[in-house]
């Protein structure tokens, strides 16, 4: 192989000028990248603060709402949404004991449909979650519902459910509960 000072004069070799130019190019790219990174980090900081504030406000609202509902003997409710925990096996296997469900207050309790799962108060004042198996419309136009638990051993509820006792309609069952 060629060696010595002459070897580096071969045009294939990178010259000190090319090396310096590359260093400058990297320096400039670092500067651009640094500025972009700064802008991005500022944006991320502002977005993060807004998001954090919203979460805090929502948590405070939930806390206040729960406390108010508790003090009035009502079910805690946030923007019409309620959380319930299933305490009996009447709705198994759809809703096992311990399942947590998210329900929402219906806009018009007289327009519920068959197969919807509703949370209601029975005539004894207990809160129950069962499925509507039949919508009954009387001659005078009043609506009532026949309800039943999904458990095969359950039989249809004896008393018909009237719209005024409907509390909420099931939206979503929390997974793994």
């Amino acid at each position, binding site marked *: *192989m*060629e*060696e010595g000072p002459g*070897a*580096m004069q071969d045009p*294939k*070799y*990178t010259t*000190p000028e*090319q*090396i310096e130019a*590359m*260093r400058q190019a*990297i320096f400039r*790219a*670092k500067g651009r*990248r640094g500025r972009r990174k700064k802008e991005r980090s500022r944006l991320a900081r502002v977005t993060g603060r807004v998001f954090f504030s919203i979460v805090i406000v929502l948590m405070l609202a939930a806390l206040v709402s729960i406390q108010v509902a508790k003090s009035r003997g009502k079910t805690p409710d946030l923007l019409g949404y309620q959380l319930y925990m299933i305490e009996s096996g009447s709705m198994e296997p759809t809703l096992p004991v311990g399942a947590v469900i998210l329900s929402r207050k219906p806009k018009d309790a007289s327009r519920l449909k068959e197969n919807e799962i509703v949370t209601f108060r029975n005539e004894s004042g207990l809160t129950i979650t069962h499925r509507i198996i039949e919508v009954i419309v009387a001659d005078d136009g009043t609506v009532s519902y026949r309800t039943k638990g999904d458990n095969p051993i359950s039989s249809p509820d004896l008393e018909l459910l009237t719209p005024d006792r409907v509390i909420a309609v099931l939206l979503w069952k929390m997974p793994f509960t």
Partner: protein
Amino acid sequence: MKRTVRRQLEPGFNTVETVVFMEGLSSIEHYHTRGERPRRVLENINLVIKRPESWGIYGRSLLEIKLLLEVMANIKPYHAGRCILVERGMMRNKRVILEHVFYICGPTMLYDNMNVLEFLMFATAKRGSGAVYRQEQIFELLLSIGLGPISLTPIARLTREEKVVVTLLVTAYSESVMIVFNVPEYRFNRMLSTAIAHIAALIKERGKTLIMGSKDCRLIEKSCSHTAYVAEGRMIYQGTVEELRLTYDKILLIIEDPEAPQIMERLAPRLPELHFTLKGRRLLISEPGEDNTDPHLIYENIIRSGFAPRSMKVNPKTVQNAYEEIDRQYDL
């Protein structure tokens, strides 16, 4: 240049200490000489290489060096003995380069349509750190190890020696624990051998082991912590470079003068315990025993003999001299 060193080994290999373990290994290949019994190219090789070390496998025969490194890389099967790589073991007839071995045997591992910096960026893309910072780090590394003159040169224009050195640099960024650099037939100029020495240090820093075959004693001295000497199919030396130099390089003084033969004639009877060798205008004075003669005593004798040599220096103990001494001892 500030370099961030990160250990990049595969998780399973962090605890590995022995990278190569060869015991009684013999090759399948034979030398056939008319009138003589065939002799195995490698016979009864015992070698232990640990991590992180850099080894220079030296030898007089390119075939023996290359074959030994091929067996180490699991490319060639062997006849007898044991060879365990990275404490994982290997099957005797499986000619596959294992995942944890990075094997370099030629210049064809690079893409000709890129320049050196571009290729290194391509090869290290998996590291994922910011491209601009990585580019700066690699470029500055190229400059600091003396590869600035080829840093932006298209790979198609590089010599085969330059290409393998670039490939060797890639290995420092790889996840391989064991790097086999099997190009003993190549001759590296000063720029490249300096770069190899830097890369070998980087490879060691990252906890990997470099094993290179070479017939260049200077390269081994510059780049390797350990060395092994294969001659006539046998391993006749293995150990650290330091130990080799101190044990086998017996030369005390090197005198350069046009009257070197006359100096030798005068000194030989005065210092019978020393050995004198004439190499052109150079007189090598060595000490066969373990007496540790003071070089100052030799100098005084030269002056008393009426000579004033042009140049006289204490031998810095080199790998080349040490291997020459081994050649003499083994009559090679």
